[in-house]
């Protein structure tokens, strides 16, 4: 049904209906923003890139292949825009916990907050140690409930390759965490 809706919206846009595009932006803007933010960890840049993504999507909408999910195409374009941005600015991924004060629930005790911060730092350190594709797989996987098939479409690699990389990254994360814990104890 969702796919059908997207398809109708896109057809309507291609017929010159700007309102349909407005609906489409409204529907997917947050997903794109979050995806891009997770990739580059910069709020301002994420907003700029999101804007760029939607403009590109609009201009290239006639190229959209209806055999695929629109979201996959949208995230594929977003991913490519992020890669362009990263290449352009050679940005180092820094975790800036202060950026997101609202994340930490008011109900959290100081210990829980500290633990949360530590886990987050660990995961980000781990993600930054991964190669680009592995990192993207984990980010997309945990951000959106997408299937391996969707991941394969977005990242333009095979499904089996996505699976293999995903399980390997998880396995390595366990090792990474246990080494961290050992390091702390010593």
């Amino acid at each position: 049904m969702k796919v059908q809706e997207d398809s109708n919206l896109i057809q309507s846009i291609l017929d010159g209906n700007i309102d349909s595009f407005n609906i489409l932006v409204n529907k997917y803007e947050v997903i794109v923003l979050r995806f891009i933010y997770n990739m580059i960890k910069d709020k301002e840049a994420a907003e700029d890139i999101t804007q760029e993504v939607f403009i590109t999507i609009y201009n290239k909408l006639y190229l959209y292949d209806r055999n695929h999910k629109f979201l996959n195409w949208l995230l594929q374009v977003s991913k490519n825009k992020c890669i362009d941005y990263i290449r352009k600015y050679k940005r180092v991924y820094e975790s800036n916990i202060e950026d997101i004060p609202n994340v930490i629930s008011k109900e959290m005790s100081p210990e829980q907050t500290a633990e949360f911060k530590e886990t987050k730092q660990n995961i980000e350190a781990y993600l930054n140690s991964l190669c680009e594709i592995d990192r993207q797989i984990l980010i997309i996987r945990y951000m959106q409930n997408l299937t391996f098939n969707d991941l394969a479409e977005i990242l333009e690699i095979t499904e089996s390759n996505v699976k293999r990389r995903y399980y390997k990254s998880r396995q390595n994360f366990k090792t990474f965490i246990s080494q961290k814990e050992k390091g702390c104890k010593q």
Partner: protein
Amino acid sequence: MNCNIFRKRLEDYVMGDIPSELKISLENHMDGCESCRAIYEEEIRIDASFKMALSIEGIEFNSSRTSIISAIDKNRYSKRTSNKILYNIKKYKNRYLSYAVAVIAMIVFIPMLLNNFNEGSYKTEGASENKMDIYKAEDKASNEASTENSTQDIAIADEKQEAIADKKADSKVIMNEENSPMEFKGTIVESKELPNYEIVWANSLNGEKSAAIDTIPEKDVDFGIHVIYVKDIKTNKIVKYEVIKDTQSTIKNIQWWDNEHLIVVTGFAYGSVSYGSDIYSLAVDTGKFSALYQVKDEKQQIVEVQKVKNDLILQLIIYEDDNYNISHKAVGKINILDLKKSTDMQIISEEKK
């Protein structure tokens, strides 16, 4: 279910990528197995921490929807057919381009292929014609051989076949070239080097010189390359003339032109079909050969040439059929002055059956 199977399928279970039956049995296993349950909880914890770490629920993004809508070209798409066609072409431009390339390639290559095909078939036809001729000639040769009760073996027949084929090729070359491909060499020989059988000598008009071919006169069928011997009757010096180029041709017949020149008829060396096709003159003093005439029609064979006043009188055998089976005699005439003009001879008399 044992622990090994559980651990193998655990990842799929965590992903939710698992059939419901298996899901139930995995859950049942977990209830009974403490260690597997611990592993499962560890996986869930990792999942949760990833989700939590990547969660950005708290961040409030500014919507850029308004600026997006204002930035886009609102007239880009429309319901107009021209607009649809334009974007259809843009979308499938690679496909259309490849079609166009394919069509152009077909337009260019099909005539080339057809040409090649035609040439190929023409060549095959030519080859088969040649083959036909060879078979015909072979038939003819074998017919003759049987009538003459000659003991020719298969090897000779094969040789004939090849030779006839070669002759065809050669004759084409001769036609194309103005200069004769034949070259002759004269060497002084001792009288003891003459053939051991008797050869027929013919004296020149003034009786000073005598010439002969090393053929065996009694034998009707006569194969092989022959040489001319020219003997000075006074000094008894003998000069041997032989063909050194175009070894398929031989001297067939000689006649005296005057006291210094011989008319030499040459022709294909092998087979009983061929008598002679070319006329040369040989200056016996200098040993210089020069081409005089060549028959244009392969069915006309020169047997003998005589000079009568200003004309060369050619005794001919004219074959009537393609198999070279039926022939009749004829006499041709060509004026000496016409020799260099490459005009054809006149048939002055023909013996019709």
